[in-house]
């Protein structure tokens, strides 16, 4: 690469350029011309660059090298984000994976799958895996159905306060998950309102223990994650032309057909995006399970917590964590595959 100041010195038409001056020259070279690629090739648009250059150089042909900015190779620019990603995210994950493969639990020695054999053979693990998948898929299904219905009502059925409710959805997304669970305790907990009504209605029958069952976890997760489905759906619905809905109605379609054949196909990518997000979040949900079902419900994240923090068995905890990661990535990959096959051929116009 030619030195800009060296060439300028040869031309004898520029003052000495300091280090700061070089930066300024490079900046001018990049920002002074809007047609970057043509400039780099030395080709200028008709009647644009050359006339100005000639004036600046007193009619002398311009030396393109003097304008060439000093650029770094792409791999150098990619290094900082890669380093941060590796250090902050990938390296700890690699440590977890290494720990899961270390027979002595210290990370030394040759890798072994013995710990995997031990953990995967435990009934507690299999039960946790089953519970995790069932609760996650159930919660996702519930959140998708409820979210779709609520989003349809908010977006297409005008009612007072509808816009305020839509805005509240955004606020709801910022709430921590345990807060929702805590709130549910006041309704469904053993001393909650629902139990009070139940006891009053049936006299001597004791309070029902609902929240500490998988159904309680399911309810809490559906309650908490439904807005995560609604948000992208509301964005998608806002892009559907009212004229389409009116055209469908004028052609004789009733509301259910319009929802099924006009709205749903256009919102499908957003529904899938919201659903997959909820699925992955449900698979890895910790706070809700800890608050509600921890006594009777064990999922993979709570199993990791139990093995690592309560039992001090880090190797087993890492094995469960790796399985959890594989499960999440696998289900996400499955979602991408399904999405690519279900995407409307007309183009995903209403994607959030």
């Amino acid at each position, binding site marked *: 690469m030619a030195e800009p100041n060296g060439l300028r010195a040869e031309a004898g038409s520029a003052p000495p350029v300091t280090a700061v001056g070089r930066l300024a020259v490079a900046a001018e070279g990049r920002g002074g011309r809007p047609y970057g690629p043509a400039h780099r090739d030395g080709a200028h648009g008709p009647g644009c660059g050359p006339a100005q250059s000639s004036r600046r150089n007193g009619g002398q042909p311009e030396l393109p090298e003097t304008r060439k900015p000093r650029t770094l190779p792409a791999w150098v620019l990619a290094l900082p984000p890669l380093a941060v990603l590796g250090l902050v995210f990938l390296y700890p994950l690699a440590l977890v994976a290494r720990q899961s493969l270390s027979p002595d639990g210290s990370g030394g020695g040759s890798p072994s799958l013995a710990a995997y054999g031990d953990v995967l053979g435990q009934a507690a693990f299999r039960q946790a895996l089953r519970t995790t998948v069932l609760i996650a898929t159930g919660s996702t299904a519930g959140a998708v159905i409820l979210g779709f219905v609520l989003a349809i009502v908010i977006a297409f059925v005008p009612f007072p306060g509808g816009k305020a409710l839509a805005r509240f959805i955004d606020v709801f997304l910022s709430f921590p998950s345990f807060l929702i669970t805590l709130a549910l305790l006041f309704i469904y907990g053993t001393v909650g309102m629902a139990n009070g009504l139940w006891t009053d209605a049936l006299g001597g029958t004791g309070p029902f223990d609902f929240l500490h069952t998988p159904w309680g976890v399911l309810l809490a997760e559906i309650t908490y994650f439904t807005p995560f489905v609604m948000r992208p759906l509301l964005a998608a619905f806002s892009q559907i*032309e009212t004229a389409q809905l009116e055209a*469908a109605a*004028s052609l*004789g379609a009733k509301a259910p057909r319009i929802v099924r054949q006009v709205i749903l196909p256009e919102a499908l990518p957003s529904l899938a995006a919201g659903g997959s997000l909820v699925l992955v979040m449900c698979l890895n949900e910790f706070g809700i399970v800890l608050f509600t079902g921890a006594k009777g419900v064990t999922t993979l994240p709570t199993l990791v917590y139990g093995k690592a923090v309560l039992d001090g068995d880090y190797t087993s905890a890492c094995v469960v964590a790796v399985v959890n990661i594989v499960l999440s990535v696998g289900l996400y990959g499955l979602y991408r595959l399904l999405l690519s096959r279900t995407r409307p051929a*007309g183009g995903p116009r209403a994607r959030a």
Partner: protein
Amino acid sequence: MTGIRFEGVTVAYGDNTVLDSLSLTVEPGEVMALLGPSGSGKTTALRSVAGFVRPAAGRVFIGGRDVTGLAPHRRGVGMVVQQYALFPHMRVDANVAFGLRAQKAPRAMIAGRVAEALEMTGMAAYAKRYPRELSGGQQQRVAIARALAIRPGVLLLDEPLSALDAQLRSGMLAELARLHRELPDVTMLYVTHDQVEALTLADRIAVMDRARLRDCGTPQELYRRPRTEFTASFVGNANLLPVTVTGDGRVGLAGTDVSVPTGGAAHGATATLCVRPHLVGLGPGPNTLRGRVTEVQWRGATHRVAVEVDGHHVTAEVRELRETPALGDEVTVHFASEDAVLLPAGGTNG
């Protein structure tokens, strides 16, 4: 045969009245254009027929049946809108079949009707394409085919050509005229702000302004014998000049006594004289006025010359001139008595 009747239809949003006491009858098989500027209430009138706005007062009838409270899907009207409103995830044939499927038509009938509608609109070759693979004009044809496939008695067209460029618009206008000839039983309500579309296509034009119906008549009536200044200026271009009636068949215009039909106008009454620019000639003739040239526009086949006559602007649209007058030149213009119409001064008849 199905006609449309508005009986005192008023639509209001709060205190804002967007359609005020519209009473209008569209005869079966007729093409009625609702012509007016933005905010004149023409689209609201159309939407009240489709069932998408509920009148605060008045009734809407389709084919003699009161449909004021009827849901849109029960009205059996076809609707075509400016932005096409095709379903992007459906192919062309599925779009056209949508209405028939919604009405649970037999499968064999659907195939036949879809083919027929696509054939009629010249889109049969594009049946398996998606809307995004079509041009604007083709999408609008599909929208028309979709509306016609259900064989509606009434076809509502809301600015259907506004999104098309000038050349496509002209072609589609001819297509719509052909469709009307082929489907003489279909009553069409055509909303537009474009006078050319209204003049070309409509059997009658309802001129609307500020939520009210201002005038209604055949295109020829409205163009040649407008009843209000608004109609005169909105349906075609017009020279509107203030005059005073000086006698039977005589009015004073810019200090000159000119001969025009005055009807029963009283002596001394003020009125507005309407003369179409293409009926004004350059040079001396009957009803000659003298003034100075303020603007000359070349329009290909014609020249448009604006002349200031005693403070009033008179525009003459004449065949292309070999020698054009210069700005400031003193010229004379003239018009025939029978080409002038005397209108109530400043009145809108509304």
